[in-house]
């Protein structure tokens, strides 16, 4: 099945995009939701600022869902929804829209991603604490297995683990441990004779990097482990239920901002990793766009990704043979090696009490692996063409005046704010209140959450209201940052030592140790960059305040003031920097904090000058891979800012 991951601006605009993609030969839908929808906030919430309609489509209530799916035959469509913390809610909206269009829930086909552990580990769009989150997932599995039997209620994601730096062994081990946590929770909520069916409905969403031979071996290893798990732990016997089913989005972490055209060949090779051998071939593939590291891809960029798949499928002879690695000693040896490593790591997770309890352990292991990856790139031990080698290039004709990316009109957010307010004013409030009251009661009980959730969807409840009710029942949660436990040792020891001396010297002048606040404003959960900056700053001797993701500009400003930091580093990868960075700076100045601000993330070239105008001292993008060089800049910046005043 071929899809492209799509959705932006408004439900109506995204609906047009889906219809045009279906006309181009796409065979399923893959809905990208914006961050407020993914984390359970309405478009007019303070935290949603700058994010409405950015990385996906905003869906605040059943009216939006109706507009999104208008004219699409839901009875025949296979729809993949990238939704996790609020998956139960979005599925309820999907069921509601289907039923209100006369399509029975039993006919619906598709997938909700619904994997919460990787949100704590890597992606950051969680909403509730681990325990209640697992309960929501188990409720959905138990509900769909009888009521929406063709639905894949969960997609165990190893994709994002690799994006967060996981090695192949970690990717396999953590994904399998995660599946065990889910299945164990479901086992308590369904009849034992349904477990085969439940097992058969669990699918995976994996990653494939450019080392495509090893990556292919990884997928074969996962298939073996999965079958073993089904037979031994859950007593599954039907071979149909035991098959390892997975979809794939190939690696984005390895895509570069410098010479971005090279990403096309990376994507092709990564696609081979998941298609080469028939015994471990992906069932559904999404390819990223060549310009992801620059900003949001345009429809044309996505079309190119779809065409790559079509060439592979229809022009090459890839699909004509049985498994081409059968009997290969090299492949079997690789698979065995990965299996051995993965089994050992799964044991460690089990010793921590399973995936839910081992979140802290897994998170810090991932931060460590990613630090090692960056170190290898910094030292040239891992070659990335166009980034740390062969960097000379002619100007790219692919990049137009707008920077070769799509920009979302800021008007969209204003319209959506007004639209959700109008929706609230226009509905039967008594019915909404009653539905929320019932939801609250069910949340506090042992009952399955789906019934009350679907009733709330039908009553016209909003995404933010559903989530707030559950947040109140389950408690707020902040995920571990993983940086506290991270081992030291990034850049070359000589460079670090000389920087440490410099930090000591500047600190002497400041009167106290140089202190940095690393902040992630808004809903963007991609915390790799912020984590690596935090760890490296510590390693050169700074005191580092890092509070994790999802901070409002006001919170960042309050922390900066209370902590008395000398410099502030902000990281944004979701595209909301144009709104949020000036907001943070305004909030800082309002509190009388004049410390310099630097920004890192996916920042298109065209946005650099306006950010600097707003008061940003320096901007770093994915092409700036040398963390030690960034640190040297930061230390110099602090010295310069305080040099004039430190002597008084």
């Amino acid at each position: 099945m071929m899809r492209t991951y799509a959705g932006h601006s408004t439900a109506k605009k995204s609906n047009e995009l889906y219809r045009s993609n279906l006309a181009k030969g796409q065979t399923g839908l893959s809905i990208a939701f914006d961050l407020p929808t993914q984390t359970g906030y309405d478009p007019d919430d303070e935290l949603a600022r700058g994010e409405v309609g950015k990385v996906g489509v905003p869906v605040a209530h059943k009216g939006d869902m109706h507009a999104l799916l208008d004219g699409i035959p839901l009875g025949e469509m296979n729809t993949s929804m990238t939704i996790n913390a609020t998956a139960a809610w979005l599925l309820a909206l999907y069921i509601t829209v289907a039923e209100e269009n006369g399509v029975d829930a039993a006919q619906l086909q598709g997938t909700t991603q619904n994997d919460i552990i990787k949100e704590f580990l890597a992606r950051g769009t969680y909403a509730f604490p681990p325990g209640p989150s697992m309960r929501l997932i188990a409720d959905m599995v138990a509900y769909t297995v009888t009521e929406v039997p063709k639905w894949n209620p969960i997609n165990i994601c190893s994709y994002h683990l690799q994006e967060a730096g996981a090695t192949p062994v970690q990717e396999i081990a953590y994904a399998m441990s995660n599946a065990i946590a889910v299945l164990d929770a479901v086992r308590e909520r369904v009849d034992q004779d349904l477990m085969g069916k439940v097992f058969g409905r669990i699918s995976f969403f994996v990653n494939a990097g450019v080392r495509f031979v090893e990556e292919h071996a990884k997928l074969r290893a996962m298939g073996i482990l999965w079958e073993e798990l089904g037979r031994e732990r859950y007593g599954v016997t039907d071979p149909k239920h035991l098959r390892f089913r997975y979809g794939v989005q190939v690696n984005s972490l390895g895509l570069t901002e410098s010479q971005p055209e090279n990403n096309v060949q990376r994507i092709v090779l990564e696609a081979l990793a998941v298609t080469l051998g028939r015994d471990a071939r992906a069932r559904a593939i999404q390819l990223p766009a060549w310009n992801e590291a620059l900003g949001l891809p345009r429809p044309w960029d996505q079309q190119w990704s779809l065409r790559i798949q079509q060439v592979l499928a229809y022009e090459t002879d890839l699909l004509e043979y049985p498994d081409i690695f059968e009997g290969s000693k090299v492949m079997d040896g690789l698979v065995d090696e990965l299996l051995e490593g993965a089994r050992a790591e799964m044991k460690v997770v089990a010793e921590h009490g399973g995936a839910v309890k081992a979140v802290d352990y897994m998170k810090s292991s991932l931060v460590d692996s990613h630090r090692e990856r960056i170190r290898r790139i910094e030292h040239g031990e891992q070659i990335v063409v166009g980034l740390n080698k062969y960097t000379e290039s002619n100007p790219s004709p692919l990049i137009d005046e707008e920077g070769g990316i799509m920009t979302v009109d800021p008007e969209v957010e204003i319209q959506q704010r007004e639209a959700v307010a109008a929706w609230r004013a226009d509905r039967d409030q008594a019915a909404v209140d009653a539905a929320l009251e019932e939801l609250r009661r069910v949340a506090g009980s042992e009952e399955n959450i789906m019934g009350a959730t679907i009733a709330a969807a039908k009553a016209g409840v909003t995404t933010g209201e559903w989530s707030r009710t559950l947040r109140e029942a389950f408690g707020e949660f902040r995920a571990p940052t993983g940086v506290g436990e991270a081992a030291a040792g990034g850049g070359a020891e000589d460079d670090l030592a000389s920087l440490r001396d410099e930090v000591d010297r500047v600190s002497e002048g400041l009167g106290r140790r140089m202190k940095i606040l690393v902040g992630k404003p808004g809903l963007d959960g991609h915390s790799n960059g912020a984590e690596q900056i935090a760890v490296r700053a510590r390693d050169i001797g700074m005191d580092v305040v890092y509070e994790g993701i999802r901070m409002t500009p006001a919170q960042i400003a309050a922390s900066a003031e209370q902590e008395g930091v000398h410099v502030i580093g902000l990281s944004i990868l979701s595209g909301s920097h144009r709104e949020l960075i000036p907001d943070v700076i305004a909030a800082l100045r309002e509190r009388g904090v004049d410390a310099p601000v630097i920004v890192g993330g996916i920042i298109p070239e065209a946005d650099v000058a306006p950010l600097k105008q707003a008061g940003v001292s320096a901007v770093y993008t994915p092409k700036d891979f040398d963390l030690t060089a960034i640190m040297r800049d930061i230390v110099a910046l602090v010295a310069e800012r305080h040099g004039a005043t430190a002597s008084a």
Partner: protein
Amino acid sequence: MAADGTALGRRLRDGDLSAAAAVLNLVESRTPADREQTSALLAAVSPAALGGEAKGHVIGLTGPPGAGKSSLLSELTRAWRARGRSVAVLAVDPSSKRSGGSLLGDRARISFDPEDRGLFIRSTAAGERLGGLAPATRAAAQALSAAFDVVVIETVGVGQSETEVGEVADTVAVIVQPGSGDALQFLKAGIMEIPDVLVVTKADLGDIALRARRDLSAALRSVGSRDTHVVAVSSISPPQGIDELIDALDEHRGRLDVPARRVEARRAGALADFVVEHGERGLRALGGRRAALKRLEREDPGADVPALVTTLEAEL
């Protein structure tokens, strides 16, 4: 530009909570000009200037990593704020021995409203002394207790470090999680000072927490402590035991001879500052720790720390 310590002290006396960040920036600074201003600040909030001991309740909160201190602190601050008390948290984190830098992570786990001036959180690195207090923490606690209703010093460790916290705090609460035998053994062996309040976290674990609470109460009785409250709490929603803990802390403060404890705290603080400056050699010149403390006991009980340090230095 050096801050004006006297002016900051005046702001604290007037209950201006927004002075807290500037106070910390000053007391953490080691430049000679700033240290002079720190002395001025402490003089401006000394018992003499205040007409009595500072009103704030200085609470030491300590326990091993992973015991649930930060989550508990988050619930505690929420409850104190709900009771209308202003709270300053001084979170002390260990530093990396190798680089001297540190990752200050506790702040992340305490939820706060940025518009609320009644809650102040500052993280500090412990510096070279593992498990000990950051050098500025004593001064900060003394200064902030003039303006805030509650000043919490949060440190890591079980065994040695709470001794040091005990020198600064009015009330020391030790946090342990059920199933960790260390606290029990330390108590029985006398390695650990007897805390004023003992908190068992993760009460949601049910029987295990109840058993831990019972065992700790028995251990306390066996070492002859009748006054120590043992409170079981859970920070997982819905939180349990938080109000009971606040009552236990208040109750201890109510029984306490605050002026006596504060005088001791200032004397111990002056001695610590003296040692930082003049080392063990300086201490020997005074005839040792005991003689130095005897010398300080002759001073006015209301004297502030810098004045006491000056007294000791005059003996050199």
